[in-house]
């Protein structure tokens, strides 16, 4: 076990380096950078800035420089927002995080419940309906469903706000502030949940279907246990355990899934900042955000693998 963790840890470090290099490389091959595109600079000043930022050096050198700074928490300076990238991300990341965390809880509860139910009632009308809805949810383009929801609930029915986190000019504080934000969150959270609930439901359904056909489930029944115990104790534990490894992809997945949604809902999160920085060529922000999501994925993956190994007795004791 110890050896597994160590090995897995080293693997993670290798992948972290590789990922950061690829991301850096992609930005390095961009023909323009934020100094070139800033026409207010004189050529001389531009040259100065370039050497200041080390942009005139070979790529590997620049990479090591950037990496060294990044390890100190210095991801550069956002041109558009005129502030340090790290503090900028820190400002917006929480808005995204709360939406993501609510969506995460909702997704997992719904997926677990419907997945398990449709597996034990395989081929029933419920299962059929769930299967169809699951495929529908998996097939919606995020922007289209966001727009449709705004049109239905915001424009036509006018029961929910069409965007933003608070009403323009609102000065609510305390509970009423929270309620206001909550109301604005309903659609974003619903959409994020909808987008990710399909594949997870499918995952639980398949896992459950595989497990309930195994010998030990038959043994549990032969022992005269209640069907409830057979399904929710014996089968469910085996079906859920492997899902731990999925949890790793969930949070970064929700962040990146939220990019387009945040843009459409005008939600002040990192996703919207990300898209903004694409159009403003604010590459340090773009780079830092991509790096942030990748690290989240890689570290999450590592933690998930280790947790899974710790929870499953078949691996734990090896």
């Amino acid at each position, binding site marked *: 076990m110890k050896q597994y963790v160590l090995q897995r840890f080293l*693997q993670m470090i*290798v*992948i972290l380096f*590789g*990922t950061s290099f*690829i*991301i850096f490389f*992609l*930005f390095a*091959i*961009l*023909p*323009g950078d934020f100094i070139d595109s800033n026409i207010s600079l004189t050529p001389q000043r531009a040259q100065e800035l370039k050497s200041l930022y080390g942009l005139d050096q070979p790529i590997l050198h620049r990479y090591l420089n950037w990496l060294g700074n990044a390890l100190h928490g210095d991801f550069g300076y956002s041109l558009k927002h005129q502030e340090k990238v790290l503090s900028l991300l820190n400002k917006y990341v929480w808005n995204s995080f709360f939406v993501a965390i609510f969506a995460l809880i909702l997704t997992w509860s719904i997926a677990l419940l419907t997945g398990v139910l449709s597996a034990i009632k395989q081929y029933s009308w419920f299962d059929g309906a769930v299967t*169809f809805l699951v*495929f*529908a949810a*998996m*097939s*919606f*383009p*995020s*922007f*289209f469903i966001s*727009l*449709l929801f705004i*049109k239905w609930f915001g*424009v036509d029915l006018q029961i929910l706000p069409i965007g933003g986190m608070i009403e323009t000019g609102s000065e609510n504080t305390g509970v009423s502030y929270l309620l206001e934000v909550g109301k604005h969150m309903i659609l974003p959270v619903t959409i994020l949940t909808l987008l990710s609930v399909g594949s997870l439901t499918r995952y639980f359904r398949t896992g459950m279907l595989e497990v309930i056909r195994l010998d030990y489930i038959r043994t549990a029944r032969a022992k005269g246990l209640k069907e409830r115990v057979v399904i929710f104790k014996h089968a469910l534990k085996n079906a859920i355990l492997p899902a731990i490894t999925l949890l790793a992809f969930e949070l*970064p*997945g929700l*962040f*990146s*899934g939220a*990019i*387009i949604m945040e*843009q459409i809902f005008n939600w002040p999160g990192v996703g919207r900042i*990300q*898209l903004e920085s*694409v159009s403003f*060529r604010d590459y340090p922000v*773009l780079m830092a*955000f*991509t790096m942030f*999501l*990748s690290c989240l*994925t*890689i570290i999450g*993956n590592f933690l998930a693998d280790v947790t899974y190994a710790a929870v499953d007795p078949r691996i734990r004791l090896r």
Partner: protein
Amino acid sequence: METQSLLVKQQNSKTIVKSPSLWKQTYLRLKKNKMAMVSLFFLMFMFLLSFIGPYFSPYILDRTDVANMNQPPSASHWLGTDNYGRDILTRLMMAGQISLTIGIAAMFLSILIGSLLGAISGFYRGIVDLVIMRLADILMSIPGLPLLLMMGAILSEWKVPAEYRLYLIMIMLSFVGWPGLARLVRGQILSLKEQPFMQATEVLGLSDRRKIFHHLIPNTVPILLVVATLNVAGSILSESALSYLGLGVVPPTPSWGNMMDAANNFMDFRKRPWLWIPPGTAIFLTVVSINLLGDGLRDALDPKLRR
């Protein structure tokens, strides 16, 4: 002894029920799956509409018509017209050509790269395997959409002309798509290699070429078929998202994604839903059909999974 072996022969001829080849069986099973068949027919309809439909359209793709701007759906313009007076249905069909082509071409590229690298990894193992798989790990840990956004931004920086952009989009999509496929193929090959029938090819002294092309590849085709189908759906979704954001296929080339750009104008969004609902619906229905077909294929190819 003599009579007995005769009896064996008689028996052999009787007890074997003639059954069709594996592909035919798969087809027969697929035919029983109603959702998959409906999806298949819808996809065929979508293809015909996109590739043949425009020839029957009285309107020319990019012809602007100032007299008929922003018309709602009517008898002459079934889905209405846009801000330049162009017929939406005609544009939708042309966009379908682009979106479907990108989806399928990206899939072929991903499959080509993914299965080649995966097969090399799985068959030869060693250092090649290590390098390919680490590369795949690295690419897979960068979330897809941000990676595509970055690459889309690069395309814009390079000022790639609109007509070449779609080829680069295909390459971008397959760049994101191959690592998953390579892993899958590698896993398949590794598990096949453990099968006794692959050990048998060793005992029989067959050449590597024969082992790979006659024994390994035909056995990975079924799962590749399913994954390829689902991959088309993913590619269409990614392309539409990129194009919607203006980083994928850009006007004047129409695609379902960039047609939805209309929704970014608040007046068009509120007052003229015929501008953006048809392309969105087209994406949704196409993707849902591909997903259902892929799922049906999976069931049909591997009956063990069902019961």
